[in-house]
């Protein structure tokens, strides 16, 4: 396996509703910063790959405009996935394994504010049997949370503690949207929005963008004092129908983690893409992090602090990489998810040299 590292990462500050800028205007400074910080001249980057979703933007070919933000001239090797930027990173990583190019720019972007996200996401469901029922994203997550509470030892208090921890840790994240000191008691006294989920159990709605530059082997060592090496990366998908799955577990997360070599030794930092507190508990169970011990979970605040859909998974990789690069951690795990109730999951293992 060819050595590939994250050598830079940039993100926008997530906001509830950027009513002034379009997606390209949000994306441009993020890409410029990631490229500038990478130490690799823009025209020398070997490949570009992005992640976004037409239905989020409410228009077809939404990603095409993203290309205006990168200065794609002379023409560039470029691709796009209709998924979170974390999967765009996977595509770039695969290409880097071949050895023909040495660097890649990866970005993810999206405004969740234009539509009603919880309804837009119902369009991800089977169009014949599920989508016509319009089971919104929060209700589906609530179904999953209910199953979790009823069939495991997990409690609403644990969920509230995840929320409190996330918002508190987010205070040191300049790009976070929802931060503050909330305590579990306060949270538990709030009403449900969809039982058993309360407002604090849910990620905010965010507009934002993120970009990462990957570099291979010697190039990474040349441009970065402490590259965050990708030691393993893998992704898996589960059956689509919530009724067919055990929603309280995440076997695809487990399988991806095993394939990526995540479970072989201690993790210092785990950035998990959990838009719902209940989902963080499920992911941690799958990863053997139910009792975190020495592992810091979501020091960025995670998706509960900022959830720019289509960039949030890439941000987990960027945040984990940053903690390697700045010496806070030696071994980190980043996770991304897609689809209803954690249907598809990606795990990336990062290490310092």
């Amino acid at each position, binding site marked *: 396996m060819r050595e590939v590292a994250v050598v830079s990462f940039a993100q926008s500050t997530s906001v509830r509703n950027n009513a002034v800028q379009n997606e390209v205007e949000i994306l441009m400074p993020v890409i410029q910063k990631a490229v500038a910080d990478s130490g690799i001249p823009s025209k020398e980057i070997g490949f570009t790959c992005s992640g976004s979703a037409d239905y989020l933007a409410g228009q077809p070919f939404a990603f095409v405009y993203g290309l*205006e933000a990168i200065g794609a001239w002379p023409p560039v090797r470029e691709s796009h996935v209709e998924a979170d930027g974390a999967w765009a990173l996977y595509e770039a990583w695969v290409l880097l394994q071949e050895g023909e190019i040495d660097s890649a720019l990866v970005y993810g972007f999206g405004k969740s504010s234009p539509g009603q996200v919880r309804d837009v996401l119902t369009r991800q469901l089977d169009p014949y049997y599920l989508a016509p029922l319009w089971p919104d994203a929060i209700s589906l997550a609530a179904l999953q949370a209910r199953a979790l509470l009823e069939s495991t030892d997990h409690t609403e208090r644990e969920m509230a503690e995840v929320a409190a921890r996330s918002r508190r840790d987010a205070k040191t994240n300049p790009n976070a949207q929802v931060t503050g000191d909330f305590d579990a008691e306060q949270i538990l006294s709030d009403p449900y929005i969809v039982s058993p989920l309360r407002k604090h159990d849910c990620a905010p709605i965010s507009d934002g963008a993120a970009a990462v530059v990957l570099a291979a082997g010697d190039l990474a060592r040349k441009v970065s004092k402490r590259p965050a090496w990708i030691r393993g990366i893998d992704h898996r998908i589960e059956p689509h129908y919530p009724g067919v799955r055990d929603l309280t577990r995440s076997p695809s997360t487990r399988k991806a983690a095993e394939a990526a070599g995540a479970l072989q030794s201690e993790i210092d930092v785990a950035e998990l893409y959990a838009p719902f507190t209940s989902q963080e508990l499920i992911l941690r169970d799958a990863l053997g992090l139910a009792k975190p011990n020495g592992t810091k979970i979501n020091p960025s605040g995670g998706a509960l602090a900022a959830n720019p859909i289509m960039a949030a998974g890439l941000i987990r990789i960027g945040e984990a990489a940053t903690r390697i690069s700045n010496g806070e951690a030696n071994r980190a795990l980043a996770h991304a998810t897609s689809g209803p109730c954690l249907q598809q999951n990606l795990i990336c293992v990062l290490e310092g040299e």
Partner: protein
Amino acid sequence: MERTAIVGIGQTKHDTAREDLSIAGLVREAATRALDDANMGWADIEAVVVGKAPDMFEGVMMPELYLADALGAVGKPLLRVHTAGSVGGSTAVVAAHHVASGLYERVLTVAFEKQSESNAMWALAPKIPFQPTLVAGAGGYFAPHIREYIRRAKAPDHIGIEVAVKDRVNGMRNPYAHLRIPDISFEKVAESPMLWDPIRFLECCPSSDGACAMVLTSERYAATGKNPAAWVRGTAVRSEPLGMAGRDEVNPCAGRDCAADVYAQAGITDPRGQIDLAEVYVPFSWFEPMWLENLGFADEGTGWQLTDKGVTALDGDLPINPSGGVLSSNPIGASGMLRFAEAAMQVRGQAGEHQVDGAHLALGHAYGGGSQFFAMWIVSSERP
């Protein structure tokens, strides 16, 4: 880089509306044919790479999530590529990289569109606030550039009609083709309504439901299939921005650069002489001469002469779109992969009635967006 072989190919019968199948049924029709051709079962596949165009065509957001079960992808990596109209091609390129990288040995790739489910003309260009909508359909976008080609090349008016006839004649020899026009003729096309001058109705692609699938493998599995393997000799993609001052949409730089890259990989220095045939994305007739030039088969301004002289006919020296091309079937998300697959079928001797004799080296080409996204591959009957 690992050698990559194509050992299974399948496609659906393309049609205006495949009302006999759900979206899952459509992809499975193609995928099961590809697996059967490859002598493989679902369990043999290690990763699945899916491609399709905007989700508004079916009204399903990220339909690969819904299709995970239908595509045998449960427990496996599943990736969805979307690069506008070139997506079928770029999906095949991504799948090829999955094998060439050494990471996977048996990859299923599927591209599809079931555009009868929604409204294709709307989905291509819905009315978005603050953006003027002036023309309906892709033809309205491309017609002005075609006009500029005709002016530059001083091409006679009838060239487009010749392409339209040729591709439908070829389509009659392709059992999967959507459009079957047995009485297609020069007069029939010339007399069809002018839609976006100079594009007539019969010079346009249809709107189709359809899917295409291929099984790509490492060298270790290349002999598995029912037919001899086709070998990938080169893959390339290039993109240029849509609204950039100085772009040439008639002979796009991204297309020329993409072709140069894939030819270099495949050791092609004389495309016209070395390549036996090409499956090229021609959704409106005039794109044939335009792409012949963009791909280096003809000098600038002379592409139309190859068409005019019959060079690009099935029995010509450089057959273009022996399958009938996009003018015969256009499930948008699949069309690019159909070009790539048909090129591979040719070098495997698998193209039946539209087989080009002695086909050993073929080009598959796809483009998308405002002539800004390009994906190409070169396939051969010879192992590299």
